[in-house]
């Protein structure tokens, strides 16, 4: 059912028909069976679609002077020919129509075209071909433009084919305008000529054979439709053509920016902006590293710290080392080790010493101290060989007390010839002369004195040194050690003081078997350790009631006072003596303490009468330096109670130090101040390893079983806990010449500090790598 062409007028009777009425006119004619329309428009919009016939007869429009959106939503079977140019949106949403534009198109020509064909004989405006797409159930849209398209063309294009022939625009900077193909995801744009400002979303490519086939097949039809067959030969030269396709989803993901590393190495300041100031290797460290990149590193420092027992002992006896030897089964060596420090382990450590070592023993944090006193007693029979070569130098020692004999012992050990001048008839000083038998078994002391004398120490008893002899000694001997002790009792000059018995004399008489007489009631003035010995002596001599008084808190050790109290003594303080009468002591507040005998034991002073006054300071003591050296004569050393009254252990320690410094002096070496290694910090020794023991059970244990209780402070007990626990297996145990050490391998160690954290003895210590760096 086809009729002849119907004419549709855009202006009727000189008046412009509205778009709505013009379109309704078209609809009406279509109803009437017309399929060919000649529209003489006057800017009316939307001419040409979407329209169809029920029987499928094609629709034909010839349009002149249209408004916007000619052929928009055009359907298959519709062909629209526009004579002249058209404004925006020609073929917008084209759904299948063939649209021939014999002129230029406005903006957004072929916008959203999804099917059909759009042929443009001229140029089109911006955003042409934007959002074109291809529905696979329908033929692909085609958009042919003879000349150029405007900027932003083919934005978000999703499918279809566009062909921009660039005819006459061969010199133009871009036949696709600026920023073409932004957001393009599909389809193909063929173009001939230059392009610039193309988006990054697409690839610009050369044509392949099928592209050429497509163009060579399509161009004649296009040119025929727009009646420009004259251009065929120019356009058929495929050398000027290119195509644009969208990057795939995967391709778009690829970042096109230069890697920073390449930028840094290729363009950035060579060697880095800090390259002249510091070393930079650009290595990126992990949180956990080995070697120099660790934050901390461990060091196995055996005996870097003093054990508390060692630190507190005036003789520096390292009990932790003795126990370590016991632990290794070296009992003999263990018992002999002490003799390197003291010749009186059984007498002093084992009996008279208040054992400062035990007071501070780390084991007290768990239960009770290691039995160091008993350990000393075990060394009574021990002996060591003095194997140093004999030396010609002779040393004179004045006094055979603990300081003098300690010095003699150590000097002999070093090979010196030693003469000891003793004013008393017996050897041993106060140990022998004044300590009550109750506190010091004579048989043990005798054994230890013998051990000293057997080493070739030559003691001249009853040899009081006077000025002349002292000068001679200084001349005859390479060095002189003054170890005269303190044998001049101090007396307080209150009224009646001449009646006082001097404690020192009293004790000496007892020990010589002279049995000094005492009354029933005895008062001892003073409550120090010596006073306690006097108390013991008084009871031994028959006293019934002994009272010790002091002006201040008693200085005696608790054990000594306990001993005295046990015998029945009273210890009173503060008590100030006003005078001494036949009835006893009258205190400053007028009370009487009845006494038949009053003994004073408030301290003793050394007797320096053989020394020139100019050698003494205003307290009457010899001027000396920190090396025990006499200021007036570098060959004369002072030691023991002659410096300051102290414990026997102080005397032993000072005697040893004086001896060592004599050796150094005679060898021309720098003298020693004997500074101790710092005591180990409490938290480095891990008491958590030890289960507390009931003190009774401890008492039942043998002394040799103390190996289990001693915590070996600062001294490796060779338990290999560190080796086992190290997470990096960095620690090994090395043994050379019977000596072992643990070593951490820096290339394995991560510096976690577990070795230090678990070490029972506190031998491992962590150090900051930072400080190493910062210092350097």
């Amino acid at each position: 059912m086809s009729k002849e062409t119907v004419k549709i007028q855009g202006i009727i009777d000189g008046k412009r028909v509205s778009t709505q009425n013009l379109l309704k006119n078209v609809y009406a004619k279509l109803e009437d069976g017309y399929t060919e329309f000649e529209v003489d428009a006057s800017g009316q919009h939307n001419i040409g679609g979407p329209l169809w016939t029920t029987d499928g007869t094609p629709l034909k429009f010839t349009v002149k002077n249209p408004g916007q959106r000619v052929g928009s939503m055009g359907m298959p079977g519709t062909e629209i020919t526009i004579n002249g140019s058209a404004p925006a949106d020609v073929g917008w949403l084209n759904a299948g129509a063939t649209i021939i534009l014999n002129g230029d198109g406005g903006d957004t020509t072929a916008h959203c075209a999804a099917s059909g064909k759009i042929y443009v004989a001229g140029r089109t405006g911006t955003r042409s071909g934007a959002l074109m797409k291809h529905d696979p159930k329908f033929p692909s849209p085609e958009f042919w433009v003879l000349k150029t398209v405007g900027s932003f063309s083919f934005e978000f294009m999703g499918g279809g084919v566009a062909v921009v022939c660039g005819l006459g625009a061969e010199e133009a900077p871009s036949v696709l305008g600026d920023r073409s193909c932004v957001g393009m995801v599909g389809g193909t744009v063929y173009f001939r000529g230059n392009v610039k400002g193309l988006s990054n979303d697409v690839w610009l490519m050369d044509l392949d054979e099928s592209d050429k086939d497509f163009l060579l097949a399509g161009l004649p039809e296009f040119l025929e439709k727009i009646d420009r067959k004259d251009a065929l030969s120019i356009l058929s030269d495929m050398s000027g053509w290119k195509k644009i396709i969208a990057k795939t989803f995967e391709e778009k993901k690829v970042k096109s920016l230069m890697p920073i590393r390449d930028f840094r190495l290729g363009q950035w300041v060579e060697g880095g902006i800090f390259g002249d100031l510091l070393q930079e290797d650009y290595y990126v460290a992990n949180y956990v590293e080995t070697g120099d990149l660790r934050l901390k590193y461990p060091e196995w420092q055996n005996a870097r710290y003093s054990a508390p027992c060692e630190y507190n002992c005036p003789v520096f006896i390292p009990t932790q080392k003795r126990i370590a030897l016991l632990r290794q089964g070296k009992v003999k060596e263990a018992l002999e080790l002490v003799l390197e420090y003291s010749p009186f382990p059984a007498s002093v450590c084992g009996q008279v010493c208040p054992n400062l070592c035990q007071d501070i023993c780390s084991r007290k944090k768990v239960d009770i101290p290691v039995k160091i006193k008993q350990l000393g007693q075990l060394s009574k029979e021990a002996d060591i060989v003095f194997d140093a070569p004999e030396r010609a130098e002779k040393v004179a020692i004045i006094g055979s007390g603990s300081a003098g004999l300690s010095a003699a012992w150590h000097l002999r050990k070093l090979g010196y010839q030693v003469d000891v001048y003793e004013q008393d008839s017996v050897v041993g000083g106060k140990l022998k002369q004044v300590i009550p038998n109750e506190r010091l078994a004579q048989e043990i002391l005798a054994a230890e004195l013998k051990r000293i004398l057997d080493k070739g120490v030559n003691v001249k008893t009853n040899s009081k040194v006077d000025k002349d002899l002292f000068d001679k000694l200084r001349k005859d001997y390479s060095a002189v050690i003054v170890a005269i002790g303190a044998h001049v009792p101090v007396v307080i000059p209150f009224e009646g003081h001449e009646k006082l018995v001097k404690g020192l004399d009293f004790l000496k008489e007892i020990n010589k078997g002279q049995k000094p007489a005492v009354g029933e009631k005895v008062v001892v003035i003073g409550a120090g350790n010596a006073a306690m010995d006097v108390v013991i002596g008084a009871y031994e001599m028959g006293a019934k009631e002994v009272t010790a008084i002091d002006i201040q808190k008693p200085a005696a050790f608790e054990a000594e006072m306990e001993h005295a109290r046990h015998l029945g003594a009273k210890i009173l303080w503060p008590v100030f003596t006003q005078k001494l009468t036949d009835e006893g002591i009258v205190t400053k507040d007028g009370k009487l303490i009845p006494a038949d005998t009053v003994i004073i034991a408030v301290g003793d002073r050394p007797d320096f009468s053989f020394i020139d006054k100019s050698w003494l300071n205003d307290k009457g003591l010899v001027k000396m330096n920190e090396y025990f050296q006499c200021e007036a004569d570098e060959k004369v050393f002072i030691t023991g109670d002659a410096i300051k009254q102290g414990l026997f252990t102080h005397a032993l320690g000072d005697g040893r130090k004086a001896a060592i410094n004599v050796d150094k002096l005679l060898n021309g070496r720098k003298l020693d101040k004997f500074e101790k290694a710092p005591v180990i910090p409490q938290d480095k020794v891990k008491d958590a390893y030890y289960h507390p023991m009931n003190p009774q059970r401890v008492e039942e244990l043998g002394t040799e079983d103390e190996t289990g209780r001693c915590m070996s402070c600062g001294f490796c007990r060779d338990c290999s806990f560190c080796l086992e626990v190290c997470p990096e297996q960095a620690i090994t145990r090395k043994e050379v010449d019977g000596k072992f050490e643990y070593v951490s391998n820096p290339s394995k160690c991560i510096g976690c500090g577990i070795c230090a954290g678990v070490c029972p003895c506190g031998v491992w210590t962590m150090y900051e790598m930072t400080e190493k760096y910062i210092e350097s």
Partner: protein
Amino acid sequence: MATMKVNQISRDDLDWQLQYNTDRCTFCGKCVAACPFRAIEAGVEKRRKVISDHFTPEPKVQFKTVPVIKQCVGEYNFCRGCGICERVCPNEAIKPVRNEDSRFGVKYRATLADPYKRGGRANLATEKRTLDKIKVGRISQMTDPSLDASRHTFDMLAPFGRILPADEMPFDVVDGKLVMNSATPKVNWIYPIIVGDMSIGALSWRMWEAMAIAVAYLNEQVGLPVRMCSGEGGVPVRLLKSRYLKYVILQIASGHFGWNRIINAMPHMQELPGGILIKIGQGAKPGDGGLLQAKKVASHISEIRGVPKADLLSPPNHQGLYSIEESVQKMFLSLNSAFKFQVPVAIKVAASATSVSVYNNLLRDPYNIVGGFFVDGLAGGTGAANEISLDHTGHPIVSKLRDCYNAAVHQGKQGQIPLWAAGGLGANWNLAADAFKMMALGANGVFTGKLMLQIAGCVGNDHGKCNACNTGLCPVGICTQNPTLVKRLDIDKTAEQIVNYFIATDNELKKMLAPIGNSSLPVGRSDCLISVDRAVAERLNIQYSC
């Protein structure tokens, strides 16, 4: 036996407690190896039980000594909550847990008689941020021509330099043509988000170089003209002599650190610096001055700054300045002349109740030498400060910036001395939104510091986590000069992530510009803002909506 006494610091006094699961711990040592604060250590613990497993009492002692990881407790070595232990633990056996009942603040002061110092940021921010109460509420919906963020070109440039008003432009009409008869003040047009002043010294050399690389890369590879400010710690000579100097805004502050090398490098400069920023104060700690702890003064710092290893204090006040007028005369004039008036000079102050007066005063600028007013609010970060300054001094930036802008508008001088704002911007991780809102309120641009560190891997936050920038022990190598820690930081990765963040921010900024129909920066376009908080709306004079 370890004893505990009343006045000793104990675990429950600390801000952070370690949650440690001994059953899951394999004693691999990683946590202890990685912790820079000496806050954890290995140790041993007793496990003791006396039990009876008979029908009659038969005591049996069960005793074990178990290696464990322990928290250190002390005024110097304590957990900062950085969580590196948790990161390196393969078994989720350890992590720091915030102690709600911490007494650390009182313990520290009472024990050491010293103000508590730390780095990081204010820790009292409990309220929602003002900027989060503001939305872009005016969207082009069939009104203004809206733009498409991904397709439109945007002119996103902000001025650094003195802008002359039209009627003061030195133009004459000669023979019907416009002729410029004298030079206008130098203005650099730069990206509206720049990297704020963080010194070499406060930052590790790797962090500082990573930022410098990122900025150069953004300019040269990405096309974003971002700038960074050197901070007051000098500038490496190699950078001064390189062509990248143009991306660097040099800072001068009260300590004047590093300027000897800058001045001596002048004859060798290939490019002029991107600007000069005079620092008067810092928003995070106004009145506290710069504070570089001695342990961060590594040898290169000491060299660049020209000072020995010591606590380095930049005085809180400029020693030679007594008034606004004198500041202008001495600092602006001198630094303008330093580069022959070819480099614009701006000034940075901590936001303060007096900021508007200062800005009003600067706005007179008869010599056209004031190239910008940088206002820094209290929510910014710092490398080290007294906590009292961090938590209790300062002024929020939003209303202050608004007031400054309005003051300029009142005089009809807005835009003449560019306003730049900072102080906690990007704390919600979205710098684009914050920057946009600040610009709409009147800022020409914003600067950001702390956020760069967070991009780089800073683990700290505004609730007391880590904040140990002052210790020189930054666990991620950002705020430390300790080589073992600095080496943890990856220069390339850090630069890449800063670059990426800026690219993302740039995209996001366009997504804010497009819907309001601005193809240039929305400076002063407060009409596009609404607030769901009436007080905020009223204070800022923007629309209240609900």
